């Protein structure tokens, strides 16, 4: 009794666990239950029960409701799908003027909007693409095919790669200085001589449309939400779900709405990239001290000036993090949207992965990552740029960058022209290095992979077998062994203990949605993989973070490393693990671990750093040694921030698990991938995405509530 009074929380938790395990043992696995694999679920089976709701028939294997809840929401994906089709093909037909046929036609409103959007996006992408690579679509858009036939000179030849390379170096120099200029130049030269020019420029043109658009929309909506409580309230739930929604899942509905191609990819990228931008904009604007705003007012700013000259620049730090996120997401999507027909490096990467040509995949992945880092650094430099008012500059000094650029354009054109004579019979390398004519290291890497396989096969295989048989399989079996009711009790109980009745209700709703969907077992598999990944990532991340924190330089260095790794598109992580472990669950899990370790490490370091210096000194003065200081002062204080890191780790892990479906897993991700190639997959893909998002949100809710309480308890804000 004394003990219970002393540690009431501990006993509540113990009680919860006891109930949970009691339920697990009390409810037996039904004899007919088997974890159904693959296609079998679509086969009609007389043993199945069924019900009809909203005219949709749902078939399922019925079990004891304590073991598995019936899929009461089974109609939802079909309904979503039908609704989408209805919207696209029948709802609100309107008349519109068709330029080509010179007559009025009727079309459903949504379809028409989608077509217009598509045309607009396509135009933007083509415009940039043709400046970089040449082509005639843009010219045609302004004139006509007949006109271009008569005036063949108007076809854009595209810029020679030398000009683009020099141009980006000059731009980088203007923005930041010699270092970045050198980096920019090297990246471009690398891309060119390794024969990745064309796909790289395709990807770049995609990014140059998607990133600024996402930025503008995110900023705009963020401002709107900042100004109006009502907008914020409406946006907030969507933002929350989008934060944890795997990017894959958004692809599927987009496919229905916008079809296949770069334009659909841009739109979908915006859908994914805008939410974090909005959140960070709101966060930044909120943090502005009211006096700064008043100072702006007193300086006589009108609303417009106040927003763009005072508020946004003052919130620059958070907005910049938003830009960084936008760029990250764009590159990530550049790869993923290859699934819906976006051209460029992503397509090559997926193709190479599919053919198990690790070398090629590596080259494409490296290119993407390099461009991503370059753009990230350049946008950062741009935002931090300062004007110099006092230099008494001559005309030459003032315009030196433009003059240089003009010079390079001329030199580049001359070189390209000379090239036509130099390489009379083959390709003009001074204009563009064709895809298969560059230097390729693919063979080298492939040989390396083969060598690793041959040499270490035994060990890798042994490790693989051990991991799968002794760790993963049992863990997976344990997860699947949980009766639905037991899981529900555990999760809701945890919600209640952490955040009271409110948290319990939220968590209960989220869990029930998944439990009533037809994919509860799959969700369990997803959860098991994510759990495994998260546990290992956290152990690694917290250890590495703590060790690095002991020294100022190593901490900064590690944060820098995290920055760079974060810029890599998520798919790139699959490359090295496939090199080592081939197509197995191990590969996926290791990719998950590597990817999810980034936030774990970062937040550990940041959390430890945020402990006030005064406390360090106070602790040192009271004769505490380094280890005691760490365990007694720094960890407890840094813990809330580290838990936010755990939150991010979970989201990252979930994303990677879902992407891992590409290698072949048995979880929700696999179904999303399948839905992509299914004509009627939109509803399924979307619902699956929501399920994954909800898994993330359950943990998100629990962790955030806990952190808030803890912070209040510790008196930190």
């Amino acid at each position, binding site marked *: 009794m004394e003990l219970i009074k002393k540690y009431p929380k501990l006993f509540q938790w113990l009680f919860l666990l006891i109930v949970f395990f009691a339920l697990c043992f009390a409810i037996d696995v039904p004899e007919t239950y088997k974890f159904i694999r693959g296609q079998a679920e679509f086969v009609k089976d007389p043993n199945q029960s069924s019900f009809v709701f909203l005219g949709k028939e749902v078939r399922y294997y019925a079990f004891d409701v304590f073991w598995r809840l019936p899929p009461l929401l089974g109609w939802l994906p079909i309904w979503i799908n039908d609704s989408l089709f209805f919207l696209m093909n029948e709802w609100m037909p309107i008349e519109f003027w068709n330029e080509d046929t010179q007559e009025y036609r009727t079309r459903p409103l949504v379809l028409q909007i989608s077509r217009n959007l598509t045309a607009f996006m396509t135009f933007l992408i083509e415009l940039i693409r043709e400046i970089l690579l040449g082509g005639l679509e843009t010219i045609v858009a302004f004139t006509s095919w007949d006109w271009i036939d008569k005036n063949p000179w108007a076809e854009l030849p595209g810029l020679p790669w030398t000009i683009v390379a020099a141009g980006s170096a000059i731009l980088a120099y203007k923005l930041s200085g010699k270092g970045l200029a050198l980096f920019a130049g090297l990246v471009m030269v690398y891309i060119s001589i390794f024969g990745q020019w064309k796909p790289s420029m395709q990807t770049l043109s995609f990014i140059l449309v998607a990133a600024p658009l996402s930025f503008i929309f995110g900023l705009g909506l963020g401002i709107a939400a900042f100004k109006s409580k009502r907008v914020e309230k409406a946006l907030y739930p969507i933002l929350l779900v989008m934060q944890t929604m795997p990017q894959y899942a958004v692809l599927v509905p987009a496919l229905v709405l916008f079809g296949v191609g770069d334009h659909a990819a841009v739109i979908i990228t915006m859908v994914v990239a805008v939410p974090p931008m909005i959140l960070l904009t709101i966060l930044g604007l909120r943090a502005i*001290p009211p*006096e*700064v705003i*008043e*100072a*702006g*007012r*007193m*300086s*006589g*700013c*009108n609303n417009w*000036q106040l927003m763009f*000259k*005072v508020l946004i*620049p*003052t919130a*620059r730090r958070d907005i910049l993090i938003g830009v960084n996120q936008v760029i990250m997401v764009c590159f990530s999507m550049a790869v993923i949207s290859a699934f819906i027909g976006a051209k460029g490096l992503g397509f090559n990467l997926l193709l190479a992965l599919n053919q198990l040509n690790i070398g090629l995949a590596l080259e494409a992945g490296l290119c993407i990552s390099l461009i991503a880092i370059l753009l990230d650094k350049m946008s950062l430099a741009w935002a931090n740029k*300062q004007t110099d*008012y*006092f230099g008494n500059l001559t005309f030459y000094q003032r315009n030196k960058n433009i003059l240089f650029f003009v010079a390079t354009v001329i030199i580049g054109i001359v070189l390209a022209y000379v090239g036509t004579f130099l390489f009379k019979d083959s390709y003009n390398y001074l204009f563009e290095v064709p895809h298969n004519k560059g230097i390729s290291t693919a063979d080298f890497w492939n040989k390396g992979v083969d060598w690793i396989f041959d040499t270490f096969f035994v060990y890798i295989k042994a490790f693989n077998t051990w991991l799968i048989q002794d760790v993963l399989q049992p863990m997976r079996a344990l997860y699947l062994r949980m009766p639905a009711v037991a899981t529900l009790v555990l999760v809701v109980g945890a919600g209640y203990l952490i955040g009271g009745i409110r948290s319990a209700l939220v968590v209960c709703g989220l869990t029930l949605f998944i439990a009533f969907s037809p994919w509860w077992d799959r969700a369990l598999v997803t959860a098991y993989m994510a759990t495994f990944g998260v546990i290992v990532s956290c152990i690694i991340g917290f250890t590495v973070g703590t060790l690095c924190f002991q020294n100022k330089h190593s901490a900064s260095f590690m944060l820098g490393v995290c920055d760079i790794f974060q810029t890599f598109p998520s798919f790139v992580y699959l490359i090295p693990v496939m090199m080592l472990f081939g197509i197995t669950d191990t590969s996926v899990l290791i990719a998950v671990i590597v990817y999810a370790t980034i936030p774990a490490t970062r937040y550990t370091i940041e959390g430890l750093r945020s402990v006030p210096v005064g406390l360090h000194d106070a602790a040192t003065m009271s004769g505490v040694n380094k280890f005691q200081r760490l365990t007694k002062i720094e960890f407890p204080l840094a813990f809330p921030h580290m838990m936010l890191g755990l939150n991010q780790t979970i989201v990252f892990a979930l994303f990677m698990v879902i992407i891992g479906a590409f290698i072949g897993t048995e979880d929700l991700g696999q179904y999303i991938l399948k839905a992509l190639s299914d004509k009627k997959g939109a509803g399924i893909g979307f619902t699956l995405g929501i399920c994954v998002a909800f898994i993330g949100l359950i943990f998100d809710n629990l962790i955030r509530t806990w952190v808030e309480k803890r912070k209040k308890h510790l008196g930190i804000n």
Partner: protein
Amino acid sequence: MSEPVIKCEAVYKIFGENAKKMLQDSNGNVDAKTFQENGCIVGVNNASFEVSKGEMLVVMGLSGSGKSTLLRCISRLTDATGGKIFIEGQDLLQLNNKELIELRRNKMGMVFQSFALLPHKTVVENIAFPLQIKGIKTEDSINKAMDMVKLVGLDGRENYFPRELSGGQQQRVGIARSLAVEPDIWFLDEPFSALDPLIRKEMQDEFLRLQDKLQKTIMFITHDFDEALKLADRIAIMKDGIIEQLDTPANIVLNPATEYVRKFTEEVPREKVLLIEDVMESSTTDNLGDLKVLKDEIIENVAEKILTQEKSVAVIDNNNKIVGSINPTKIINTVFGGRKNNN
């Protein structure tokens, strides 16, 4: 006398949902407690006063007494809940957005307690900011801002960012920024309270020097009575949103209007506030010494001289005419004895 530059008539500022309605219902008799029970916080309660051209009004009061809120009402950073405010005869609350912006761009300057500099701009950019907002060409505004930088003694640091400056330096930037548009009316909200005593004194002297040169109409908020005495033409003392007393420093000390003001001024060194005139006897005796003191001298400045005398000292006005006398014991009483048993 010419028209007052700032004129407030029964100004109220009440925070809360249905503040306006409650104010109307109360007929101007606002009781902070009843309002608080209804979820409203009283910021300013029935403030009426005038500030004339070239005058410096110092507003004092404890934390939360509504000083900043009053200033915000007059600069219309928040809208007063009730009452009328006139700036140079213009009804402030009737101005539309455009007129208000014009007024702020040309007539008003404000210095903030926490500096409120724009973190992304350098010193000179911060100072040039109001000018650029007005639409002045970059080059001209930077030149003008450079003059301001020199005025507040920050030359050589014009390209620093606020984060690279000390508190005192940042506040100089704030002052320079508020002066850049050459406003007629200058609001200062505890401009020096974040500074250490040495720098504060330095800044006060500099501030007086500036005011001597510029002759602006000023409302100045402070917590520090010494500072108020040093700067003020008149002092307003606030409590719970009400202006308890608004008068010259001497009158406030000698004739506190309420018990609160008396408590508030109790610790104030009298000799720093009072003039000879305030304590002299207007009846003149013949038994006067050779020393003569001016009647509007602050006691502190002449106390030593008077105390060396044995006889009473003659008090003269500017025309060298004897208007009264003062006895050294009176001085001793004022300086040492007067605090506790105030008359």
